[in-house]
């Protein structure tokens, strides 16, 4: 065993010790803290029923065929022609945000909700009526604290309580 | 405990080993039988040596050397078996005899 190799072993072990006793931690305490995501994060999508002009662009651009135009029965009857409104299908949506970006009236908007899971298949399909009710709320054991990730020179990522 | 219990046990082991050597055709299995015989022999050696406290250490020393030499024997035989296996693809002594020449 040459000397330099022994030195390298020692260095590796010492570095290990350094991190054992003085290392930073990058962990986000997820269910207790949730990260406040930056402006414009492409999370789940919310839909504004009133401003939508039913132009179908969102459904046309959707790459995963997740956004679909549903015939809105009452409105069709009321207006006497076929009226279609978008509904989203989270079983396919890939959160590319194309629909939001192409919507000419900003009827579709990103939210920052990003941590939802479902027990069943059916609940993930949102026809327009449900779609306009807003995004689902994830289950939390208790009300989480909102934190902001601060990039740091020494510790990588720190988490600070979000101001808002 | 009388020593002859040990001796009888060793006798039975010895016979089992001999039976194995006689009746088996696989080289390795014969080796294993021989090892049973070796165990039996060692047992009888030590039980005889334990009869007399003067001979005890001598018997012990003999046993030590015997055991270590048995390791050597095992090494050679197994290597031979591997050689045979490699050359002939079998460990059957009958088969080996048939292949000879």
């Amino acid at each position, binding site marked *: 065993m040459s000397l330099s190799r022994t030195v390298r072993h020692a260095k590796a072990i010492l570095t290990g010790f350094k991190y054992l006793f003085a290392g930073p931690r990058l*962990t986000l305490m*997820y269910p207790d803290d949730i990260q406040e995501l930056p402006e414009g994060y492409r999370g789940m999508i919310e839909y504004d029923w009133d401003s939508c002009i039913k132009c179908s662009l969102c459904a046309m651009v959707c790459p995963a*065929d997740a956004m679909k135009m549903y015939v809105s029965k009452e409105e069709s009857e009321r207006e006497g022609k076929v009226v279609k409104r978008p509904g989203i299908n*989270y079983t396919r949506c890939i959160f590319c945000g194309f629909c939001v970006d192409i919507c000419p009236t900003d009827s579709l908007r990103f939210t920052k909700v990003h*941590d939802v*899971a*479902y*027990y069943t298949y059916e609940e993930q399909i949102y026809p327009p009526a449900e779609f306009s009710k807003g995004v689902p709320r994830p*289950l939390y054991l208790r009300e989480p604290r909102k934190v902001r990730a601060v990039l740091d020179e020494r510790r990588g990522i720190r988490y600070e309580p979000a101001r808002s | 405990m009388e020593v002859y219990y040990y001796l009888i046990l060793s006798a039975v082991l010895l016979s089992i080993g001999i039976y194995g050597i006689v009746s088996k055709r696989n080289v390795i299995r014969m080796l294993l039988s021989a090892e049973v015989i070796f165990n039996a022999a060692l047992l009888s050696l030590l039980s005889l040596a334990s009869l007399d406290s003067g001979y005890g250490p001598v018997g012990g020393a003999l046993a030590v050397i015997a055991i270590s030499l048995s390791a050597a024997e095992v090494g050679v035989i197994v290597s031979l078996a591997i050689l045979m296996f490699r050359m002939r693809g079998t460990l059957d002594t009958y088969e080996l005899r048939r292949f000879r020449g």
Partner: protein
Amino acid sequence: MVCSLEGKLLVGNLERSARKAAAWLVEKRPVRDIRDWGISFSLWPVHFTTACCGAEFAASAAPKYDAERLGFLPFIGIRQCNLLFIEGTLSKKMAEAAIWVYEQMPEPKFVVGMGACAIDGGIFWNSYNIVRPMDILPVHVFIPGCPPRPEAVAQAIIMLQRKIRRGELVRYETR
């Protein structure tokens, strides 16, 4: 010959009656709760990356999200794990493997479908080479997203834990 004897002993009448007694015992309240508690905090997903969602799955085990806090330890062998994460698309070739993995895992076992692909195919829904996991496996939790964020993975674990602790998933079934 010894094996067969032992075999009879272990699967014979004795075992059946023992299992019956055990079934009665295990399904009683405190034992069942302890069991469900233990299982819910010891969900070991088997290492089975089916597609690109594996990248985010790996990130959820990594320092920032550290799913090990929840008792979630990605592990190697099929036989030692109790959770199957379908990490994204199941291609037809992979679906065969997934069935093998699922069937070879010991009971009790759970399945999580991660990513849009593991629910309805996501962007690849009309590909000729994919299979929907729910058609071939009983999936307990779905995580939408492409790829889902590691937070969503953690959320799915929490939801699965909750479901287990409610006693809905682990059932005692005699042979």
